């Protein structure tokens, strides 16, 4: 199966640029997720690859074929739409075979492919029903089946789970991951849900404001965010940020002084940082631990407590007015307005310079 190459893609709608010089390589059989907030351009990029949006500048290659000038049906891509886009007047079987009949494939081959896909997706008993007679989850399977029978070089998924309820979403997510193991084609999956991105992707493309912010494996994205946007967008709860002053620390590492005067030693090398003076400290909730009011690096008042079962998130208002989210055990007894201490794990802290570029500890996971 071929890989996919996007070269300097640009897309404009009138005066607005919606894709701004995007380049990207997708390896054969890779599961790539486009992740970003609404309006960042991820769906437009997907539609450009599918041929549903024209390319104003740049090239799209699938293997050794340049496809950006080809009609959608000639690109050997298959797409699963957010709202399924099944043909309501056709049976499930007709929906799945429609594309194959259009290319005049022999009936025996069509029947074979439809049967195999239906068996794989466990929808054999639905083949003679119409989309209106089956559930949302089953419709999603049919939409996936319609893509599978084409045996495409590339599967495109445009937020396919967003219409499903929570339980079905988890199940379908697992099924898509299993499907990827069974087919050889690459897959591109668009979502704004970071859980879907983290659990499905080989690599994630984080997009914001028409551009790619970072491309990396899920753990690279999580542990070594390239920009403050990525750091804030990926991870729940969002990363804590605070403006800091840098001071020299031990062994060539820097220490960060918070507005309330607390100094956090980090494992970020002084030599790796630019000359800029303005830095933000970024640190995730799991690197901030709740402790007794006198035992922490700093202290504050619990403003809000989220009990998630396996852990408890405590929103702590520090003495300078900053609120940080810290983590405690699932059995935490912290209550609203309690005075609590907060202990920083500076080894997991990140720094973001005045260009919002991320700088990370030398021994970070995934580095």
């Amino acid at each position, binding site marked *: 199966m071929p890989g996919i190459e996007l070269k300097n893609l640009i897309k404009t709608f009138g005066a607005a640029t919606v894709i701004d010089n995007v380049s990207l390589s997708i390896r054969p059989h890779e599961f790539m997720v486009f992740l970003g907030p609404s309006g960042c351009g991820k769906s437009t990029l997907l539609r450009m690859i599918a041929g*549903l949006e024209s390319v104003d500048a740049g090239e799209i290659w699938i293997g050794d074929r340049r496809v950006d000038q080809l009609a959608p049906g000639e690109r050997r891509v298959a797409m699963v739409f957010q709202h399924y886009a099944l043909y309501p*007047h056709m049976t499930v079987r007709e929906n799945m075979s429609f594309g194959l009949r259009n290319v005049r494939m022999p009936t025996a081959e069509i029947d074979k492919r439809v049967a195999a896909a239906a068996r794989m997706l466990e929808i054999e008993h639905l083949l003679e029903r119409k989309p209106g007679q089956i559930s949302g989850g089953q419709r999603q399977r049919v939409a996936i089946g319609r893509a599978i029978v084409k045996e495409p070089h590339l599967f495109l998924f445009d937020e396919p789970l967003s219409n499903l309820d929570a339980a079905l979403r988890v199940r379908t997510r697992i099924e898509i991951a299993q499907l990827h193991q069974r087919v050889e084609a690459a897959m591109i999956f668009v979502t704004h849900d970071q859980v879907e991105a983290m659990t499905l992707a080989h690599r994630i493309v984080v997009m914001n404001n028409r551009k790619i912010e970072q491309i990396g494996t899920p753990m690279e994205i999580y542990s070594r965010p390239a920009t403050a946007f990525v750091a804030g967008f990926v991870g729940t709860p969002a990363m804590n940020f605070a403006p800091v002053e840098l001071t020299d620390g031990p062994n060539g590492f820097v220490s960060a002084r918070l507005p309330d005067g607390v100094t956090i030693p980090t494992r970020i090398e002084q030599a790796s940082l630019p000359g800029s003076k303005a830095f933000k400290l970024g640190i995730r909730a799991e690197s901030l631990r709740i402790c007794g009011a006198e035992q922490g690096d700093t202290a504050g008042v619990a403003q809000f407590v989220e009990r998630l079962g396996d852990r408890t998130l405590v929103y702590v208002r520090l003495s300078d007015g900053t609120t940080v989210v810290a983590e405690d055990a699932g059995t935490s007894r912290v209550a609203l307005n309690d005075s609590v201490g907060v202990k920083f794990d500076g080894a997991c802290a990140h720094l973001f310079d005045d260009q919002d570029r991320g700088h990370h500890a030398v021994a970070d996971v995934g580095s």
Partner: protein
Amino acid sequence: MSAQFASGTVGRGFGDRLILGATIALAIVMIMPMLWAVGLSLKTNQALLIDTNSVLRAPWTLTNYYDILIGSGVFRWLLNSIIVSFGMSLGVLVLASLAGYGFARLDFPGRNVIFVLVLFGLAIPEQAVILVRHQLFSDLDLHNTYAGLMLPGMSAPFGVFLMTQYFKAIPTEIDEAAMLDNASRFKIFWRVLLPMTLPAQATLGIFTFLHAWNDYWWPMVSGTNPQMYTLTVGIASTQQNFAESAGLGYLMAQAVFAFVPVLIVYMFFQKYIVRAVSGAAT
């Protein structure tokens, strides 16, 4: 709590019965003239000259229908009405579907302006253009032809509007899925989108058929040859000479011929007609 609920139920039941009673009364008012016409058509003209209430008493006869079978032009008019009504309905469906698809899905210069011009047609009464149209059809030698009777009705601004709105309501994802399925633009229209507009087409087809069937003015203007009369014109032409005609029973038998086909159409399509009138189809 339960008392309030019970009281509400009683209130709703009474209201329902009131509405049902009014509906039955209206239905009787609507159907009585038709039943009366059927009754009159089954009486001899001599009996009706003495007393029209004799319709309620035997003897009844099929003489009037027999006379129609052997001597009247009503069969020819019925055939003309069927040809014109079906032809006009088919034409409207084809043209309005194509135009609706074009306005809803194709991007071409002046699309919105042309659409507005089409909608202007809704505001122009037929009476305002009938003289010009008559002259035009005369120049084109279209009077006393089926084309002449059908063509004016085929320009249906409401139909274009209805189909445009219906096509617009279909998600473009469907078109895109079909494009990825290697379907040509015509195939997307014909095999994918058009079948999805069947409820709107049923509505439009039924209304066009009923309009064409009941239309009187243009067929009277254009179809001056008795061989090209539609039922409405034909029956009216015999009523014009009522004093000399074969009588009331004979006239009513012709009227029955006029409304029975529509009644049959209604019986077959009543589900769609009810949905169309209630707006559910659109």
